[in-house]
């Protein structure tokens, strides 16, 4: 198979997040994926063989491959998100390896925020447990477009089809309450390698793809929002050089939509309109800019545009607003959310200040129950809030546009990132 290209661009790496509880076999699975796809280097393998032997294991502990910082090594668990890279001739992959424990929910949210796909592990012996529900909720909230439920340790349930079907059935019923667009179930044994890279001889009843095949072929191009043109201005380029004397370009990365020279545009917050004169890159002008491309837009008219402004279309643009409705995940271990306290709020390239004026409810991440009595959110808690900002934001609904629908809150005293926010707008 040849690497495919869309619109002249090589396919981007697939970013996937793995979430699992301790002992579900997540590290073993990642080690297996790396090993069987021949992405492990000899010195890495030698290292884990040596450590396994020193610890008295009688097999090579693949989990050691993904084991990073010393604190984690000492405790034997994954705390922070660790990023891994591997590729096959068909696609390259970026894994965000996330801890599963409730105490590290913020890390799982961080890993999921950039993921095209989430991989949740389920122990075939235990089926859907509290953690599975929590992880699936996070995947749903963060709008990860694709979910794979890996039913692991099939070897411990005799590779039993009924067990697998029952788990699938139970999950499907639960997931009806979530916003999951594409769910795939794969029965695997990470330890033995069944259905990870190679098809399992033990589960001939399973006719779906192996995990790696699914990862290689999952179609992500349609996950991009190509409709709503959103170009947050990041940096104004003014060369101040004789050969480019009048050059004034708006550099930025396309958040959504497709921009072309000649397009009518509207700039927020001014509301002024113009036309795209040219779209520049260091290789010269291009005739189209699509989501995630870093380009420089030149306008036909001399408008006063600066960082934090947003270029959109006259008939399709966010309504600037200081009042925001959002689901937020609290991430600060030092202090809980404080009502009416002012935080810095960063949304695309725009930073304003904002306070939370109301907590509508706190979400129970296991039962999905909404506690409307809640007035604060602590570390790892998720809730629906209203915010008031010092200046208007150009907000889209997160479910429609991940880039222009997301923001972070920063504590101005500690500079810590204290919350992740997903905007809700009435129109979506």
């Amino acid at each position, binding site marked *: 198979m040849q690497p495919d290209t869309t619109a002249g661009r090589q396919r981007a790496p697939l970013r996937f997040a793995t979430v699992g509880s301790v002992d579900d076999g997540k590290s073993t699975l990642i080690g297996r994926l790396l090993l069987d796809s021949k992405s492990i280097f000899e010195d890495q393998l030698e290292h884990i063989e040596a450590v396994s032997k020193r610890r008295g294991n009688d097999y090579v502990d693949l989990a050691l491959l993904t084991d990073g910082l010393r604190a984690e090594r000492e405790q034997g668990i994954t705390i*922070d998100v660790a990023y891994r890279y591997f590729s096959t001739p068909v696609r390259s992959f970026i894994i965000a390896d996330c801890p599963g424990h409730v105490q590290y929910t913020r890390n799982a949210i961080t890993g999921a925020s950039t993921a095209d796909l989430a991989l949740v592990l389920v122990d075939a012996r235990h089926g859907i447990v509290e953690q599975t529900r929590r992880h699936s909720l996070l995947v749903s909230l963060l709008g990860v477009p694709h979910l794979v439920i890996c039913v692991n340790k099939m070897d411990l349930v005799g590779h039993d089809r009924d067990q697998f079907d029952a788990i699938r059935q139970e999950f499907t019923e639960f997931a009806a309450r979530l916003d999951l667009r594409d769910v795939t179930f794969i029965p695997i044994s990470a330890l033995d390698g069944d259905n990870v890279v190679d098809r399992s001889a033990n589960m001939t009843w399973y006719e779906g793809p192996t995990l790696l095949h699914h990862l290689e072929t999952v179609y992500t191009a349609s996950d991009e929002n190509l409709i709503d043109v959103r170009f947050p201005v990041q940096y104004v380029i003014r060369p101040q050089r004789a050969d480019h004397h009048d050059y004034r370009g708006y550099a930025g990365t396309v958040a959504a939509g497709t921009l072309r020279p000649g397009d009518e545009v509207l700039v927020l917050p001014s509301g002024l309109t113009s036309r795209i004169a040219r779209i520049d890159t260091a290789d010269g002008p291009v005739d189209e800019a699509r989501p995630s491309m870093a380009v420089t837009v030149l306008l036909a008219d001399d408008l006063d545009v600066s960082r934090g402004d947003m270029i959109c279309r006259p008939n399709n643009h966010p309504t600037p607003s200081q009042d925001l409705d959002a689901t937020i995940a609290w991430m600060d271990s030092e202090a809980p959310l404080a009502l009416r306290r002012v935080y810095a709020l960063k949304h695309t390239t725009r930073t304003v200040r904002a306070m939370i004026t109301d907590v509508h409810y706190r979400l129970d991440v296991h039962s999905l129950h909404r506690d409307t009595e809640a007035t604060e959110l602590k570390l790892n808690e998720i809730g629906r809030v209203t915010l008031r900002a010092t200046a208007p934001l150009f907000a889209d609904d997160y479910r429609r546009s991940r880039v222009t629908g997301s923001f972070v809150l920063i504590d101005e005293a500690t500079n810590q990132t204290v919350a992740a926010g997903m905007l809700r707008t009435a129109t979506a």
Partner: protein
Amino acid sequence: MVTRVAGATAQLEDEAITIIREVAAECERPVLLFSGGKDSVVMLHLARRAFWPARIPFPVMHVDTGHNFDEVIAFRDRTVDLFDVKLIVASVQDSIDRGRVHEDTGPRASRNPLQTVTLLDAITEHRFDAVFGGARRDEERARAKERVVSHRDEFGQWDPKNQRPELWGIYNTRRNRGEHVRVFPLSNWTELDVWRFIAERDVELPSLYFAHHRQVFRRDGMLMATNRHVPRLDGEEPFEALVRFRTIGDATCTAAVESAAFTVDDIVAETAVARVTERGATRADDRISEAGMEDRKRQGYF
């Protein structure tokens, strides 16, 4: 007008440019670490692409151990002229002369660990608040958890347990006076991606990266170049071999690999099937201990 037919690294390139622009917009005094090594050369090219047709709006800095390969220093000076950027040289020798650090002696001594002090002193002296580096997460295990924008306190220290969550493509560059952020736009690149970029963008590199005949000797299973800065131990007999370097740092701790890769395309092909990580193969300093890199990073190393 061209339709961009972008290569394998287009998406990673866009991500890196986005990061460079964001930090240049939010920080007052950024600097790019430039050693002449391939990752820093790629960074320099990306910086130029990010601000084209304007000049790169920040200087570059080399932390010079004084034990570099002559070819690399010549390349460094030629390149900064070509890119029309200001070069600041922070010298480890100066730190030694001023008594800021103490130099170990002996055949196995390396100035590599001393660089941390020189780097932090230079950051303070020039009041840099953002330091771009070419480190990648695939290089080493402690780096796998490093943020793209990574906060350093007023002592230059990294606290891996207290890292800021980094969500979506939203980067938190806030810092107090005297603190800075380290910024790693190549975080998501692999060694192969770096070589593909070099191939696609016709990036010039120091000649050491390409196969050449050189006097080497064997130490700890690695091939070290004979060099006036590296005294040999008993039994370390020099011989000639066809080698190239996969990473280039201080001559005292960078080893060569046997290779007949004479061109960038040869190297891309060789890297695609490489069985040993570049640091595992060639960096004597990374072999110190299991947690060697993490410890040095905590103290403020690159």
